[in-house]
């Protein structure tokens, strides 16, 4: 294994990308419940309302935010000659993602704990 910030970013990108695709299937399953009537839809929504899924939602938020900022980082690399700053760009994307995840995740967590 060739360890580097580039390797970490590659693993995180792949992991969050695949996680988002898996989430999409679940998302379609829940929303698709509306086709079978209000009751099915409400049942499925309720299933996702449990504290466990609330917490998992923070993970989803983290994945979306990191994946998006990593994507922006890569776009910057593709359009500008900034390979020299490759490590700083990764740290920047990571730190911004962590801050936004905390800012968005805290209310979700508090709400989940309230029940």
């Amino acid at each position: 294994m060739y360890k580097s910030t580039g390797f970490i970013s590659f693993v995180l990108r792949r992991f969050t990308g695949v996680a988002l695709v898996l989430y999409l299937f679940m998302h379609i399953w829940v929303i698709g419940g509306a086709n079978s009537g209000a009751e099915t839809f409400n049942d499925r929504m309720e299933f996702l309302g449990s504290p466990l899924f609330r917490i998992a939602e923070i993970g989803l938020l983290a994945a979306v935010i990191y994946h998006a900022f990593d994507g922006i980082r890569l776009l910057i690399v593709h359009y500008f000659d900034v390979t020299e700053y490759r490590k700083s760009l990764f740290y920047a994307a990571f730190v911004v993602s962590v801050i936004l995840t905390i800012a968005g995740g805290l209310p979700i967590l508090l709400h989940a704990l309230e029940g």
Partner: protein
Amino acid sequence: MTNKKITVRIQRFNPDTDQKPYLQDFEVELAQGMTILDALHLIKEDLDGSVTFRRSCRHAICGSCAMNVNGQNMLVCETPLREKIDKNGQITIRPLPYLPIIKDLVVDRSSFWAQYQRVKPWLIPPDNVPEKEFRMSAEEVAALNDAEHCIMCGACYSACQVIALNKQYIGPHALLKAFLRVLDPRDADPRARLDDLDKGDGVYRCHTIFNCIDACPKGLNPTKAIETLRKLAMKRQAFEAARKERQKTLDKPVN
């Protein structure tokens, strides 16, 4: 003052007798000005003649001594031993990662050379080769970004995680070479080169991980070369026309 003793950990593997690679420790006296290659020679000559590695020039120019030291690829002939000793007085030397091991620190570089051949690394001269010399401008030379300094050591290739997963990918070394030829005003067929690089195993296979830049002992930038080739591939028709125009005056002084 006696010299400090250090531990050199070498990854050993003999395909005839070993199931899998293992690390073997050797005690070496750290002498003034010693390189990692010096330590390997000392071990081979005094401690265990079966330790196998490649080297030739000892001057960081032949590219045969690239190895993985403490997790980073480098040329062991140019790296001072002292610099790479950790706090426990240890240094760990492994073969280049992601390539089949032939023995100990020697890897099979067949795929590396096959991809190099694929990009036709030689110059394709124009029909009107000037009688005296080709004239290039300072800008044209600068645009090559020192790509001609590549010594084909394989440090970038074996650090690339895309290569680890997919040996069909052309790889940073060969793409850097392709970049050198495509941007060379003397080269007569940048269009055919870009057509090939534009395929599935080519420039778009790069995931922008940057390990090639980190690994290169010559400070070269394969990622930047790949980004440039991507852009040129998108406008290869115009690029080909500009090259044809440029080649009409290859024998005339520029700027």
